[in-house]
């Protein structure tokens, strides 16, 4: 029992603290400052708990959850994502005049849901985790209730998300009907021993689960919601959803694919390869045409889901550790660029056009330099984190015999350079239009420094994280 509790310690701690944060709000007048500090410290400690449970290894609560290793790594990653979001959020919320304390507890709940996903060893836990995360996202994306775009984004996300959840649940039901179990290990065992009740149901179930998870990861052809939702949602929420949310979707994908891939009667590998290629191309080509920076980053986020999916195609330990590395790098560079967008943005959706970034280097040389590093990293230019992320995923795909997929990946990266560098050119080589007051950097500066340090350290010394990432798959699978 103690062992079981240790396995889920970061999750349990976080959910209890999230509830306490909610109660604090009710008990204390003008509590927003206290709740803000409280939730930041909570995320810090849940990350520390993740580090301290990292060495554990095993399955707890009657085969429901895994502990340590893979799950603990993602616990840490999600805590970092949540922390960066919260550090940036207070200023942003105050500026938009939407600071209610529930925001902080909702972020904590979303992180708790993601942790459940990473810990799941049972389809039921996976479902609950995905729902806790998604429901928090639906609310967070509609947080600017007086802004029509935000409400639209929330409603769209909710309706389509509920639909995707339907696919997921139906897939789970069919897999249960076919294999007689929802436990990952038992499912793998039954498939390998050919002990299936209705063999025809299994491929349908697998397809439905892949559809449900692809929606959460915003991969083609289930990506259409992403641009509208990411554009309409509050900028910091977009940063959080498009990084931690994507990481959670892939944290769900990896164990499921390792269970189903070797023995599944369908050619999952080929399906992932086609999805990955289409996602990269569609994401990057659509991003070319955007004039709104949030929308551009949203499409680029779709494209990155495609890159990450290459790791699933490879189906190897090397590919999976590439995914983990890329998700870590992506977390820093994407949140970082959204923080800058949030700093420069004014309430009422102002200053979000690409043309508003003209001459940024003269007004804000530091912000412009940081944005340049994030853009280089997103484009995959060395020596930043994004380069090694792509490198590991591309080589994993080549090792698996998918040379054509790597070529598509390289091609779409070249396309993406156009709009990433386009922003840099705007910032450095054009004159600003008119005068305007900029917002203060404030607390966001702290999270900016963390993200920029992450991007540079991962880019210069990638081997540390990579060896940790590949060890995750040595011990568990």
């Amino acid at each position, binding site marked *: 029992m103690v062992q*079981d509790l240790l396995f889920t310690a970061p999750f349990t701690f976080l959910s209890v603290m999230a509830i306490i944060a*909610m109660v604090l709000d009710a008990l204390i007048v003008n509590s927003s400052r206290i709740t803000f500090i409280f939730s930041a410290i909570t995320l810090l400690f849940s990350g520390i708990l993740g580090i301290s449970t990292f060495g554990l290894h095993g399955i707890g609560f009657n085969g429901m959850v895994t502990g340590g290793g893979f799950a603990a790594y993602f616990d840490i990653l999600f805590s970092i994502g949540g922390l960066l979001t919260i550090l940036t959020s207070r200023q942003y919320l105050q500026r938009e005049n939407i*600071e209610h304390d529930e925001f902080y507890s909702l972020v904590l709940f979303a992180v708790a*849901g993601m942790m459940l996903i990473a810990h799941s060893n049972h389809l039921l836990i996976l479902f609950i985790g995905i729902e*806790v995360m998604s429901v928090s996202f639906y*609310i967070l994306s*509609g947080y600017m209730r007086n802004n029509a775009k935000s409400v639209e984004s*929330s409603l769209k996300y909710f309706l389509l998300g509920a639909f995707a959840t339907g696919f997921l649940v139906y897939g789970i039901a069919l897999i249960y009907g076919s294999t007689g179990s929802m436990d990952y290990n038992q499912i793998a065992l039954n498939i390998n021993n050919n002990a299936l009740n209705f063999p025809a149901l299994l491929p349908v179930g697998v397809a439905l689960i892949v559809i449900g998870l692809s929606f959460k990861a915003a991969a083609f052809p289930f990506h259409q919601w992403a641009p509208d939702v990411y554009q309409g949602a509050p900028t910091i929420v977009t940063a959080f959803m498009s990084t931690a949310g994507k990481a959670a979707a892939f944290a769900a994908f990896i164990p499921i694919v390792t269970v189903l891939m070797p023995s599944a009667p369908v050619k999952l590998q080929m399906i992932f390869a086609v999805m990955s290629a289409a996602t990269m191309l569609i994401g990057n080509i659509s991003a070319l045409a955007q004039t709104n920076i949030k929308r551009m980053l949203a499409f680029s986020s779709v494209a990155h889901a495609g890159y990450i999916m290459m790791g699933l195609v490879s189906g190897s330990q090397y590919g999976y550790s590439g995914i983990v590395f890329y998700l870590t790098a992506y977390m820093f560079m994407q949140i970082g660029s959204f923080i800058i967008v949030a700093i420069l943005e004014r309430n009422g959706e102002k200053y979000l056009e690409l043309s508003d970034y003209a001459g940024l280097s003269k007004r804000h040389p530091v912000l412009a330099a940081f944005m340049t590093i994030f853009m280089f990293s997103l484009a995959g230019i060395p020596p930043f984190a994004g380069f090694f992320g792509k490198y590991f995923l591309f080589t994993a795909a080549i090792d698996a015999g998918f040379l054509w997929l790597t070529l598509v990946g390289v091609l779409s990266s070249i396309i993406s350079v156009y709009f990433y560098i386009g922003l840099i050119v705007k910032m450095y080589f054009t004159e600003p239009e008119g005068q305007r007051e900029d917002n203060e950097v404030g607390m966001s500066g702290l999270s900016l420094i963390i993200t920029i340090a992450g991007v540079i350290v991962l880019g210069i010394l990638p081997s540390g994280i990579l060896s940790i990432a590949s060890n995750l798959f040595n011990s568990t699978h």
Partner: protein
Amino acid sequence: MSLHVIMFSLLAILAIATGVLLVTRRNPVSAAVSLILHFFALSGLYLTLNAQFLAAVQILVYAGAIMVLVVFVIMLLNLGKEQNMRENFNPRTAITIAMSAALIMQLVLTFTGNPTGKNQLSAASEKIGSPAEIGNILYSTYIFPFEAISLLLLVAVVGSIILAKRTVDK
């Protein structure tokens, strides 16, 4: 004919009849009432299958809570015009009819084909419907998801209040 078969036939006829009434009534309230009757018939069917807990939940959740909601919505929206609505034949209707025909064909094939499954309940599923058994499983094997799902409900409740609150005083 055993009592079991008689009960099943009665309930099945009731369920089908109310189901047909549900889609043929033009008045939304009488459609809703037939749906409630339909749920009662279904929960009777669950009882004949030894699923007492499911039967009770069916009545509590569907016939009770959900249907009250449906009737309230009908009342609030005041759907008086529905009765005069004439349906025109359009491609969508054709697709619907084709799909329903396919479903009926499939059902007929399933029931007239060679039975592959066993008609007897296994020993494990004899017990599965009792509240005691469900309680035992819920608080032992499934204790973790049971606790975790409370988090989901909490988030949903909090979220609906945040989104629905009319004014925000600060």
